[in-house]
């Protein structure tokens, strides 16, 4: 009896989870494996379409002879690159039509024509025509005749499925396109974005954890950048930072803080002098990182605030009795209590920032030194339309992420052991 129950339980569980598992498998897990496959292939965007035989049917009257009608088929191979084998052609006609001349490749039977065109090379084109005799002197409706569509069929190789593999894509990724610079940019973007959003998260959480009028309102306002659509925010920032008619530059010029407008999103480097030391700051990258911090610190804020509110009040009361200062309370009580949350946040934000595509794409499109790895996936795959190399870049992303997670957990594990 019990076995029977656990059996039905198992069966129900599989039935209940099956749809979700199938969908996730098809859309998320399968593409990851497909990516590995594609990254070893030389594929371009235009190769993706499966080549197919096509025909355009044109009906013509024969001048001087009302009892005859000509049907012209413009045949072609849709692919510019691949051949199609065993092309089969089939079309139907009304009963009152009889073919006068028939191509050798075709047979006519029961008002149906069947042709065997053999192999069409790439770019193949042919005008194929048949002359018909109208047997009962009636007027032929051209439109009706045209509305019967011919059926075509043929075999072709799907470039994605053949077994030609190459290492070219990975060579291209690693030895061309300034790979090191790409890695560094991605690292700066990810690391400083993560650190910045966590620091601002701590500050704001500490702020909102105090009691003041309008606190709930403040909490929702702080989350606005996180919940609003990227597209809207990115274009607003672009308008705000525009060198010609942007509000920020106009304000700074108006208050005589700067003399000429700064192109914050379009300038790669800016010379900065701090304490007599000159150095070049990557301006566009910095701006993009600031946008990233602005948009994602709310997540850190929310996590840390939830943790802060869970810290027992007794800890602070005891500290007050001992005469601890506010700074001591922050560093000795608050900070140790939120380190666990911060380490989780660091990992989540690091992974997500590492893969962030939309923000940089919308703000700069990857120009002026803001090309990160995800942007490169898009540029390789869709701008240069080299799908294989794009795939190789995404494989590099996955490998780097797995490496990061491996070392991070190892480091975290050691920390836990020490404690």
């Amino acid at each position, binding site marked *: 009896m019990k076995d029977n129950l656990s059996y039905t339980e198992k069966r129900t569980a599989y039935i209940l989870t099956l749809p979700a598992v199938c969908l996730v498998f098809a859309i998320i897990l399968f593409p990851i494996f*497909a990516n590995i496959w594609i990254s070893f292939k030389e594929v371009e965007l235009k190769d993706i379409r499966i080549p197919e035989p096509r025909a355009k049917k044109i009906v013509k009257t024969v001048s001087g002879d009302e009892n005859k009608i000509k049907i012209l088929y413009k045949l072609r191979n849709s692919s510019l690159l691949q051949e199609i084998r065993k092309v089969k052609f089939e079309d139907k006609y009304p009963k009152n039509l009889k073919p006068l001349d028939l191509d050798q490749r075709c047979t006519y039977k029961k008002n149906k024509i069947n042709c065997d065109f053999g192999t069409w090379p790439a770019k193949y084109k042919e005008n194929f025509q048949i002359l018909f005799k109208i047997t009962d002197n009636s007027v032929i409706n051209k439109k009706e005749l045209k509305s019967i569509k011919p059926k075509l069929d043929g075999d072709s190789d799907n470039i994605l499925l053949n077994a030609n593999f190459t290492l070219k894509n990975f060579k291209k990724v690693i030895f061309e396109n300034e790979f090191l610079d790409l890695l560094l940019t991605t690292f700066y973007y990810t690391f400083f974005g993560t650190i910045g959003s966590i620091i601002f998260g701590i500050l704001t959480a500490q702020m909102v954890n105090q009691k003041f009028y309008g606190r709930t309102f403040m909490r929702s306002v702080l989350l606005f950048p996180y919940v609003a659509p990227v597209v809207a925010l990115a274009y607003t920032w672009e308008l705000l930072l525009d060198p010609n008619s942007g509000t920020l530059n106009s304000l700074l010029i108006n208050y005589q803080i700067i003399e000429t407008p700064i192109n914050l999103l379009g300038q790669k480097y800016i010379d900065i002098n701090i304490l007599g030391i000159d150095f070049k700051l990557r301006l566009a990258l910095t701006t993009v990182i600031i946008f990233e911090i602005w948009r994602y610190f709310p997540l850190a804020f929310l996590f840390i605030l939830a943790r802060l509110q869970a810290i027992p009040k007794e800890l602070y009361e005891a500290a007050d009795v001992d005469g601890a200062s506010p700074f001591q309370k922050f560093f000795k009580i608050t900070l140790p209590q939120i380190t666990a949350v911060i380490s989780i946040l660091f990992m989540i934000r690091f992974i997500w920032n590492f893969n962030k595509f939309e923000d940089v794409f919308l703000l700069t499109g990857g120009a002026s030194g803001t090309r990160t790895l995800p942007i490169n*996936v898009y540029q390789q795959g869709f701008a240069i339309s080299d799908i294989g190399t794009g795939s190789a870049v995404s494989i590099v992303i996955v490998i780097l992420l797995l490496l990061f997670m491996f070392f991070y957990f190892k480091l975290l594990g050691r920390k836990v052991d020490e404690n």
Partner: protein
Amino acid sequence: MKIKNIIIFSIISSLLLLSLISIWKILSTLQGVKLDNLNFQILFILGFLVTFLNVIIEKKINFLIRLFIFSFIFIFIDGYLIQNLPFWYNFGSFLIICLFFNKLKKYNNDFFINEHSTQTIIFDFLTLFGIVLFSFVILFPFYMMLVTSFKTQIALLVNPLDFSINFNQDIKELFKSYFVIFKSYKFGKYILTSTIVSLGTVLITLLFAIPAAYAIARLNFFGKSFMSTSILIIYMFPAIVLVIPLYTVFSQLGLRNSIFGLLIVYTATTLPVAIYMLQGYFKSIPKELEEAAILDKLSWFGIIIKIILPLSIPAISSVALYVFMIAWNEFLFSLMFLDNPNSFTLSRAIQYLSGDAETPRQYLMAGSVIVTLPVLFIFVYFEKYLVSGLTAGSVKG
């Protein structure tokens, strides 16, 4: 000791006053007041003197009288002596100073004898400073988005600092950008597409997620723990990695440029979050209810419909709101999969609009307002449910 504390207090509080007044000055500039200098140094010294004197003479003069004297001095120097500014500006400054003094009330003479008074002050004022600054920095772009959508091309180019909206003009003129994007750019259609896609994603996700979450929360089966850990891993997985394979497969299957294709992808990407959130909630429902139902010979299907669903309406609605927001905001996949303007979603349509360099910026901002408003509305209205879900680690971004 005490004097040192008072000086530190004055410096910090004048910094707060400085930031308040500066923000007020920036906002006034944007309303057309001619201000070409923020006068940081003068304001700082003025603020310092005012707060310092305020503490010194605290016991001698009544609070209200002090407030009036100091605010009068401040406004006279800032709004009249340095630069002659309009009345409404000075009135605003007056309100800000009242607010500021109200905050200062707490820090009286006795307070400065306290051992940790400097640190307490720094902490308190950093909080105040932070609240003001963060609200400004966060709300300003939204404010700009809204104002720009009501302006004309010429007004934007002539004076980018003019943020005033002329309410006296005809309503058709005022909302011109909105009329244009609905008429010439078919935004009505895009709103419809976005709504269909988002609602569809919500429905399919719930349909798939509720049974799966129930199985993971309640039933024992082989592979259960594997499934619940892989949910989290899949949730972390980067969308950019999926783009190329999905693009190739969808091209070959003819699913690009179709709402159906988008629906599948959105559902698959939101499923892990939905299952994760729901199973957490299902676990908190007492088991006894179901045990009684099993004795009544109710099937699993019946249990989910009759017991679990009615009990978990809050959790389900918060998941639904999330999924809706994720699908509504989604940009990456709609950029990759849609290139026919007939099947655009709102986000994709705005990006397409911006691709044409000649599109006036106010149209772009009007579009941005349209795409942002529903999300912010949902968020503010249902904030209570959503915030608890957010901390459960739900929204990916």
